[in-house]
């Protein structure tokens, strides 16, 4: 042992000290030990020893602050926890989600599971007491599209006939025309009008007297004649029903059109038409024979 001692540097008697000096030497040694350990005295139950400063053997008894975390216990919906060291807790609900679009629903008190996302067009409903995705059957009449046009010579609607519906109802509302046009219609596919193989039969009644019928009056490159007069268009409607335009079959339609001339005469025109090809149509075009038109077209699908 070194003298003074390592590491406290307490001075001990040396081998050459006189025996008579030993009591005094031990007194020095003992006091040095007592002085070094002085801070360890005192304290009370529950207290812990804390450093007072960076100086060696400089301690203070202190009481731990109330609220210090001594352990973490995972509750419902949480995993992990612990009572020492670095504690990790994980949100179990978050890890239950595994895929984009997942929904979480309860399965009982404090328990849950995931519901994977449905497919396009499906709606969330209830089946067997839990939420689930379901395909909704088309309702009786569903609005597919409503488009407006202003001062144009034709208006085309693309992608309104799809495999979702077999038959369609179209309501056309004209609020203005710039001349006295006949309105014609053509079915279209992939953005292009079909201009052939139309057949038609038109009945024609006028409030001024007289009725007539004509067959394929407009030739074979478009459908119908819906007479318009720019002096009294007001708020004119045509309703049309198109049957199976998306099937590779002949496409037929019925329509009822009304109009009013500048002279105050009313016209009513029931109409039947057919495109005799087998093109699968996805759209329709309304065309003015002269001038421009303003209005809107609504396309509805009939539920099965």
């Amino acid at each position: 042992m070194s003298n003074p001692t390592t590491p406290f540097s307490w001075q001990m008697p040396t081998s050459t000290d006189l025996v008579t000096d030993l009591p005094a030497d031990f007194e020095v040694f003992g006091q040095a030990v007592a002085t070094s350990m002085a801070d360890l005295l005192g304290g009370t139950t529950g207290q812990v020893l804390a450093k007072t400063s960076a100086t060696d053997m400089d301690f203070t008894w202190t009481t731990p602050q109330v609220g210090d975390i001594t352990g973490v216990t995972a509750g419902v919906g949480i995993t992990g926890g612990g009572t020492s060291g670095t504690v990790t807790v994980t949100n179990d609900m978050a890890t239950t989600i595994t895929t984009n679009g997942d929904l979480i629903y309860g399965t009982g008190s404090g328990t849950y599971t995931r519901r994977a996302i449905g497919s396009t067009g499906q709606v969330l409903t209830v089946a067997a007491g839990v939420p689930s995705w379901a395909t909704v059957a088309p309702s009786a009449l569903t609005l597919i599209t409503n488009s407006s046009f202003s001062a144009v010579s034709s208006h085309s609607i693309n992608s309104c006939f799809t495999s979702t519906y077999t038959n369609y109802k179209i309501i056309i509302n004209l609020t203005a025309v710039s001349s006295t046009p006949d309105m014609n219609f053509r079915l279209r596919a992939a953005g292009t009008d079909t201009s052939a193989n139309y057949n038609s039969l038109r009945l024609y009644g006028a409030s001024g007297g007289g009725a007539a019928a004509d067959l394929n009056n407009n030739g074979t490159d478009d459908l119908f004649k819906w007479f318009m007069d720019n002096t009294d268009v007001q708020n004119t409607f045509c309703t049309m029903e198109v049957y199976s335009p998306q099937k590779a079959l002949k496409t037929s339609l019925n329509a009822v059109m009304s109009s009013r001339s500048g002279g105050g005469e009313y016209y009513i025109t029931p109409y039947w038409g057919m495109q005799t090809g087998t093109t699968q149509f996805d759209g329709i075009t309304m065309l003015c024979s002269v001038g421009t038109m303003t209005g809107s077209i609504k396309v509805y699908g009939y539920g099965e």
Partner: protein
Amino acid sequence: MIMTKDISQVSEFDAITQEHIVRDMTADEIADMNARKARADLSRENEAKAATDKAALLVRLGITAEEAALLLS
């Protein structure tokens, strides 16, 4: 002075994408419109001629339109 376009425009709307395009008519579309106008004009002339002929016939027969309808009923 208000400038107006002498080329008519056409409108195209896509029901899925909601894209709405308004553009000038092409030469083919203008030619098609002129052809449809010619047909419409001819159809109206024929209808007007038929109405005139009918009225003339009723005068020659000395009966009214209602009486003619009664004969045909």
